[in-house]
């Protein structure tokens, strides 16, 4: 039986843990609010940009553009993975990393010509995971600053474009958590290169499409739109990732606080029982002492 003092000490320590988890929950809630505002206000732009891009793609022969044309033999692929620097956010990183892990192995199993699948990682959690498992790490970016997400997205877009064109990779994927709600984040893997028209056929009727006038011309617009579209897409992914991180941390800290309360309740009960037992024991001693006289 634990002594009264030991139980009291444990209650104290759980209480201070609870205070921290509560504070972290509040901070994450505030940060998530800001991050979700950023995601939702950026969505219309990304959406419209996507529409414009897709309708343009539908009218472009994808063999004409090096970023749209798939390579016949895919030997080298890269997966860009967005994870967090810090933990205490539940299964946020874990679920994504497991998905990437499975994805990489499946690719390697299915396609024998695939010689190399590398990972390009943002965040310490992803770095540690892939290092432990001896993945082929391409580049690692840690200590991410939320204010610089647009810069990251832009430089990543440029780097991927250059390296894809240079033949460093034959396929480029992006893995991140889509922010569905504060409670749910959906791990997602999307292909970045080669670009593909998503359901291009049902964008609009072909005869209607042909009536667009392009200035300067279709190819020039596509050349200008592609990098911008890529930036927007990557930036959107960073925003979703950020909002998801705070959401995941908030719910993780919420359940941690709740668990702490349960532990405190249990310990308090144990403490009261022990206290009562001690009192009863003392009473019995006094009574039996008196009887003996």
């Amino acid at each position, binding site marked *: 039986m634990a002594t009264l003092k030991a139980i009291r000490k444990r209650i104290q320590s759980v209480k201070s843990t609870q205070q921290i988890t509560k504070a972290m929950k509040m901070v994450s809630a505030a940060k998530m609010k800001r991050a979700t505002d950023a995601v939702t*206000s950026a969505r219309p732009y990304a959406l*419209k*940009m996507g529409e*414009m891009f897709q309708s343009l793609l539908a009218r472009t022969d994808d063999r004409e553009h090096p970023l749209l044309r798939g390579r016949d033999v895919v030997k080298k692929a890269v997966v860009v993975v967005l994870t967090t620097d810090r933990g205490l956010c539940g299964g946020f990183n874990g679920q994504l990393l497991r998905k990437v892990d499975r994805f990489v192995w499946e690719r390697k199993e299915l396609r024998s010509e695939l010689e190399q699948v590398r990972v390009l990682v943002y965040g310490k959690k992803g770095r540690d995971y892939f290092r432990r498992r001896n993945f082929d790490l391409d580049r690692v970016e840690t200590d991410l600053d939320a204010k610089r997400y647009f810069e990251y997205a832009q430089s990543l877009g440029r780097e991927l474009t250059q390296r894809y064109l240079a033949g460093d990779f034959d396929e480029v994927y992006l893995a991140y958590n889509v922010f569905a709600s504060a409670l749910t984040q959906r791990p997602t893997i999307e292909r970045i290169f080669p670009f593909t028209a998503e359901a291009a056929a049902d964008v609009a009727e072909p005869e209607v499409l042909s009536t667009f*006038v392009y200035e*300067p011309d279709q190819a020039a*617009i596509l050349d200008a739109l592609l990098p*911008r579209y890529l930036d927007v897409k990557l930036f959107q992914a960073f925003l979703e990732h950020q909002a998801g991180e705070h959401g995941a941390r908030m719910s993780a800290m919420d359940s941690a606080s709740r668990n702490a309360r349960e532990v405190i309740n249990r310990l308090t009960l144990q403490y009261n029982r022990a206290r009562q037992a001690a009192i009863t024991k003392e009473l019995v001693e006094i009574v039996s002492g008196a009887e003996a006289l």
Partner: protein
Amino acid sequence: MADQSLQLDVITPERQVFSGEVSAVIAPGARGQFGVLGGHVRYVTEVHPGPLTFDHGGRTHRYVVGGGFAQVGDGRVMVLADRCEEASTIDVEQARRDMAAAEKTMLESLPTDRAYLDAQAAQRLAIARIQAATGAAASPH
């Protein structure tokens, strides 16, 4: 056809800047300024840094847009731009400093450099902002 109204949407990565019915839009396209009235042909163009003007609610609104794209068709005009701000809110001094900084970068780098191209875009935007803010920009239309 010209009295048809248009639905104009101006969207930047940060927010939806404007959405509403307008009677006419003048925007900076790839080959200089272009005007849109109701019944305009379906049209897609690059947008270069410059003034964006439109008539809404009985008065003329003046904005400055950064680079981007515009799509016109079916009574709708959609402008997607890096940035967009109302002419009256522009800080002219800041714009002048931006222009000077951009010109300095252009002098120090080769015209084939990425930095040069970025600086050139920044310079054009700064010029457009100064013109819009000081009212010096006479619309070519």
